[in-house]
């Protein structure tokens, strides 16, 4: 089917663009992408895809919006299992082990084998390349990458008598400042919380990784076979979350990822911990003076990197792989990445993007955008192992169990660690 289309397309393209000659082989690309932020992401992706298609008329590309990250991974893997994979997709960086285990993706460092291409691969920030490697090969190319940052309402800081240019840097400061920022009405009900750290689901697990990093540890390593859920750092991090609600700084119970930006914009919370991917959304909708800082840390600054990378799928022709690589190069080129970054708030993954005039002008207009970049050296890989979805679920259950008060921190991490080890022992 694909082969026949290719031939037909090659004939048409060859007829129309005879000048391009026989050396350029046509490919029919299907490109799956997810949307994980409140931003006009689909329009921007479509526009960029159309531009690449216009510049490469011998190729054909179809951008398919496939839902959120999880749905996109499921769809791509299901299509791959059925023998009809997308040629290229943006999927979570942390899905690398799952994709490799299913034999669904190819090492991009094998496809990008010329010296220029190797140089291009080396031109991404190290912080974003850490989680693209397995067994010495690079499997993905950073695209929509982010780290969480601390958003705060400067007006609320002023009202509470705090310096609006000095957001909290440590957990202790977070609790102290948070107490001053929390406001109650005549009935004693809270109308404005001090802060808001999403603790539910995968978003909660992602942010939790940042807490652990700031205590000098990591949740997982590059082997994909090690989960470090039961450590002093994780227990301290869980206790920090408990303390936040015990001291009345943060709402008790689980806090959802999705409601968080809205709660911040509505003034329900004076600060929030969420992805830089929400920068554009907050910038457009905030009716108050707001700032961005590093995530307050336990022993020092710390954050997880997150987001999605380009993968090239196996079971594709060499022509398709070359075309996919060319497409990826275009999407991560300075101009395209600048537009993508400005439209969404994702951190442009290459230094050259930040040198473009349009990006410099953006950084001047919205200096908050630079915070995530400055925080990058303190960021570590997001929790990722083989059987990621299952093992992450154990971590999620531990965090949710603690914040909802059903488990103690020590019990929760012990239980999660046992379950994770039981799954991962097969891979060691």
């Amino acid at each position, binding site marked *: 089917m694909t082969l026949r289309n290719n031939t037909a397309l090659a004939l048409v393209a060859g007829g129309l663009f005879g000048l391009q000659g026989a050396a350029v082989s046509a490919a029919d690309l299907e490109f799956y992408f997810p949307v994980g932020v409140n931003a006009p992401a689909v329009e921007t992706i479509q526009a960029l895809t159309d531009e690449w298609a216009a510049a490469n008329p011998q190729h054909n590309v179809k951008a398919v919006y496939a839902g959120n990250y999880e749905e996109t991974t499921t769809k791509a893997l299901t299509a791959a299992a059925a023998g009809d994979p997308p040629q290229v997709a943006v999927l979570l960086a942390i899905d690398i082990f*799952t994709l490799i285990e299913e*034999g669904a993706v190819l090492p991009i460092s094998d496809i990008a084998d010329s010296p220029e291409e190797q140089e291009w691969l080396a031109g991404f920030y190290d912080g974003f390349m850490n989680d693209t490697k397995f067994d010495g090969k690079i499997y993905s190319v950073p695209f929509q990458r982010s780290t969480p940052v601390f958003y705060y309402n400067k007006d609320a800081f002023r009202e509470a008598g705090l310096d609006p240019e000095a957001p909290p840097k440590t957990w202790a400061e977070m609790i102290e400042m948070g107490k001053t920022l929390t406001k109650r009405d005549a009935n004693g009900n809270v109308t404005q919380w001090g802060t808001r750290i999403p603790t539910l689901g995968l978003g909660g697990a992602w942010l939790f990784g940042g807490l652990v990093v700031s205590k000098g540890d990591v949740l997982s390593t590059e082997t994909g076979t090690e989960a470090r859920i039961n450590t002093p750092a994780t227990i301290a991090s869980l206790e920090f979350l408990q303390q936040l609600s015990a001291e009345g700084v943060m*709402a008790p*119970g689980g806090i959802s990822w999705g409601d968080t930006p809205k*709660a911040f914009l509505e003034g*329900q919370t004076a600060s929030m911990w969420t992805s830089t991917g929400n920068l554009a959304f907050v910038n457009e909708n905030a009716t108050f003076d707001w700032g961005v800082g590093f995530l307050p840390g336990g022993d020092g600054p710390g954050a997880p990197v997150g987001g999605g990378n380009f993968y090239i799928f196996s079971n594709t022709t060499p022509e398709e792989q070359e075309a996919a690589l060319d497409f990826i190069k275009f999407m991560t080129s300075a101009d395209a990445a600048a537009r993508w970054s400005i439209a969404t708030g994702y951190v442009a993954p290459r230094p050259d993007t930040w040198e473009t005039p349009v990006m410099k002008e953006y950084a001047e207009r919205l200096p908050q955008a630079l915070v995530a970049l400055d925080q990058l050296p303190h960021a570590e890989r997001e929790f990722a192992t083989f059987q990621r979805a299952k093992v992450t*679920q154990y971590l999620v259950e531990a965090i949710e169990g603690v*914040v*909802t008060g059903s488990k103690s921190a020590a019990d929760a991490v012990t239980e999660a660690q046992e379950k994770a080890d039981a799954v991962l022992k097969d891979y060691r």
Partner: protein
Amino acid sequence: MNKRLPLGLGFVLLVLPCSLLVAFTHYPAIKALVNSLWNNSSSFRPSRFVGLENYRALLEDDRLAQVLTNSTIYAICTVPLAIGLSIGMALLVNSKLPGTWLMRLSFFMPTMLPLVAVANIWLFFYAPGIGLASQILSAFGLPSINFLGRTDTSLVSMMVVAIWKEAGLFMIFYLAALQSIPANLKDAARLEGAGSVRVFFDVVLPLLRPTTIFVAVNALINAFRLVDHIIVMTRGGPNNSSALLLYYVYEVTFGHRDFAYGATLTVLMVVILGILAAFQFWVLNRKAHYQ
């Protein structure tokens, strides 16, 4: 007139429905049963026959125990409440009150919306601090409740959504049934001195029985079948407090990509639904008589 269908034509007519039934019901069920006896394959190791090992995992799965408890509570609560509410609504819109058309429309509205849309609407209702529920509570000076973020309220919140969504549809069935009850039966009862409560319980309700059984069967099936709102609103959380069986099957199969265990859970689900269906048909045959 009653001309016998030629055997060949009968066979041809049966091919399509039978092949659909086999392709989408019987084959997947049997395939799930077969898959549940094997473990997962990956590019590192092939799938191998493990016998009943997946079923042993089923017994040791404390998450499954929680999910089954949740599903049972969910079914036991949503079915009678949805039935009670829909009878109440049907009586209301069947009455001679002014504006019944508006009531009919608004009661039926939730049924017309897709469950995913309903879930997104309720997500905003429940949002602590900013949602409608919180605003109502704060109007009475009460603290806002983090409905979806607490283990003791998340499942109840899901039930409310399901009941709100389903009662409108069941109301239509009850409305049709109510309108088919001959007025002379009620008049006769009133002549004998029965009050309206007595008329309802001794005349109307028994005549609604076939509808009630039909609705109960559907509500019970839906209690297992509909999990869209769970996926949108809580993803089973926090700490599995709102996870239902079908959601768990979905998560294990497509989220964890653990197809073997997913197949095992599917077999469990088919067995549970089979038992429920058998029980319901038995009740239907005994208790319901259609004119």
